[in-house]
């Protein structure tokens, strides 16, 4: 006989929900498809809309920050630079914002049917990854057009960077999705947080500008070791050839990324336990 509901033992609980999720792969796949299909249904441009937003952002930052504020002077291939950072950051922000709303948005299902509830934040990760892929292929296309396709060993930075982004976004996505059920303020807080995080990472300016202001103080370390900053730097290292030789990167970027990845995995485990503890009352709190 199987006991209904989540077991309370820490490790066994995580393991059994992992196994349960694995058995629901098809369900996850269908939910991701549903999200993607339903999002732009009945709109004439469809998926083009998912590109218009980042491209507009790119145009604004390129003109305002790059030309008017003259940030582009110290940064060669400024458009590629910004778009690399934006691509990385939009993966993170989309996972966080859509998984925060995922439990509340699927209230109809959660109140009526038992599914492992982790599946809804995970579906958000899936559809965000899909959008990321589109945006990333535009980025690759752009590098080819400019004639600076990054075929260098530095491409290896892509993997740990993406891993760090997804793992941290998933960890906080799980936590925020669960807390949002009980306090709807969270979703507004997340909007603000995402805006702050955009400017707290070297996306429209360069890391060396921060270093020049802060010097090599603990403050700089704090800024640099923000996982989003590390991942954005990793993306730039891999995809942005303009800075080769001239641009500055923090020391041991790869090591930092790997450590951040490990911390992220631990966070996922911890926040998943919080999620599992809170999910028992989802159906009645919604």
């Amino acid at each position, binding site marked *: 006989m199987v006991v*209904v509901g989540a077991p309370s033992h820490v490790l066994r609980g995580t393991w059994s929900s992992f196994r349960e999720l694995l058995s629901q792969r098809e369900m996850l796949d269908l939910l991701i498809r*549903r999200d993607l299909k339903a999002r732009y*249904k009945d709109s004439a441009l469809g998926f083009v809309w998912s590109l218009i937003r980042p491209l507009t952002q790119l145009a604004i930052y390129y003109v305002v920050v790059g030309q008017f504020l003259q940030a582009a002077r110290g940064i060669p291939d400024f458009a590629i630079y910004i778009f690399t950072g934006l691509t990385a950051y939009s993966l993170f922000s989309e996972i966080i914002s859509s998984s925060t709303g995922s439990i509340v948005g699927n209230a109809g*299902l*959660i*109140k009526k*049917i*038992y599914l492992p509830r982790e599946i809804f934040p995970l579906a958000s990760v899936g559809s965000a990854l899909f959008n990321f892929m589109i945006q990333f292929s535009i980025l690759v296309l752009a590098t080819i057009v400019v004639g600076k396709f990054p075929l260098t060993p530095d491409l290896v930075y892509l993997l740990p960077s993406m891993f760090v982004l997804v793992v941290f976004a998933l960890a906080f996505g799980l936590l925020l999705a669960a807390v949002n059920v009980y*306090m709807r303020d969270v979703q507004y807080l997340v909007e603000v947080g995402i805006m702050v995080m955009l400017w707290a990472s070297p996306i429209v300016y360069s890391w060396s500008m921060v270093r020049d202001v802060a010097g090599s103080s603990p403050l700089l370390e704090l800024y640099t070791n923000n996982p989003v900053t590390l991942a954005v730097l990793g993306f730039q290292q891999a995809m942005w050839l303009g800075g080769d030789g001239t641009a500055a990167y923090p020391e041991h970027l790869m090591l930092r990324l790997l450590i951040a990845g490990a911390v992220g995995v631990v966070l996922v485990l911890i926040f998943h336990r919080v999620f599992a503890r809170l999910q028992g009352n989802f159906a009645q709190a919604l």
Partner: protein
Amino acid sequence: MIESPMTPLSPPADTRPDVIVINDVSKRFVIRKDNSLKERLVTLGRLGRRHREDFWALRNVTATIKAGTTIGLIGHNGSGKSTLLKVIGGIIDPTSGSVSRRGRIAALLELGAGFHPDLTGRENVFLNAAILGLSRKETEARFDDIASFSGIGDFIDTQVKFYSSGMYVRLAFAVAVHTDPDILLVDEVLAVGDEAFQRKCLDKIRSFQAEGRTIILVTHSLGQVAELCDRAILLNRGNVVFEGPAHEAVAQFRDILEERRIGDLSEENAGAPVEVPRVVATTVHARGKGVGERVEHGDDLIVTTTFHHPGLSPEWFGAVQIDNSAGQVVYGTSSRLLGMNLSRFTGEWTLQFTLKDVRLGTGKYFVNISMMDESGRHVADAPQAAAFDVLYYPRAVGTSYLEPEIVELGAAGASR
């Protein structure tokens, strides 16, 4: 266990394995009055306790459900039956206690839960089937059956937001019954749809029963419980009041409803000092038996009722009517139909109706009394002035009782 007439084939209960064990389950709901971050912070800690209220939806519920049985969960609104069903389905966790189960479970708490309005019928079939536990391959294999069972034809590739509510429900039900659960949880879904659709639902439930699946049914229709279920669990304010054969649980539940109704009535009548014509008291019993004893077939029913009229009454008629628990009129007669002229009176006046040779089906019946003037206008009414129960007869179901007898005539045509 006394077997209900609809399921005579089920084997004795004790030999079958348990599929669901509910062990001392309690569920507390905390009702909070502060829901935003600001209010939470303001009322943090000791103050916060004043802003919450505890409500026990279930208290120490223990029950065991055997494989292949059909169980009805009954009780009035707010008695905790839907909560219990959700705990069994894993949709909410109990505050204390545990539920264990065996086999694949499908919860039909709402038809079409998880339908996405912007997706087509076809896409929703796959999504909904996956939610109910079918793999993609299994769904593909059954897709044609599902589509033809639902009968929505070419609309299958239309977005479901354009469906009529009937098509929506039909498609949802088609998906639900084509999943292959060992345990089926059903909550009031049988109450929707037209009569033909309801019959389809009931037929499907019967075939599930015949296949030996376990069904847990929440419903307000006591007739359905008596008809479909082997056993029933009666809940009242979160406690199990009774667990046992369905017809006994139904009888007990009717008693509870009756007590509540009388309680409501006496409260209503408390502040009405104005003198109007009224029915003072009514009793009903079988000849030779006390009030409240069960009525057997062949008994003569004696209804005694006292009217009160403040002044001299007009020419009048007295009427009695018997309703079953569903409110359907089973029987009615009056002094007018008998061609009697009753005497005019002042103050109190008592009539006695004798209804001979009662042959009603099992269940609870209510006696309504009316006083009418010459034109048929009701002067005084006493709806459900008294009630009686008819003994359980296992040989037939329905409102009336006819003694059945079956003779086998063999192959068709042979005896004609």
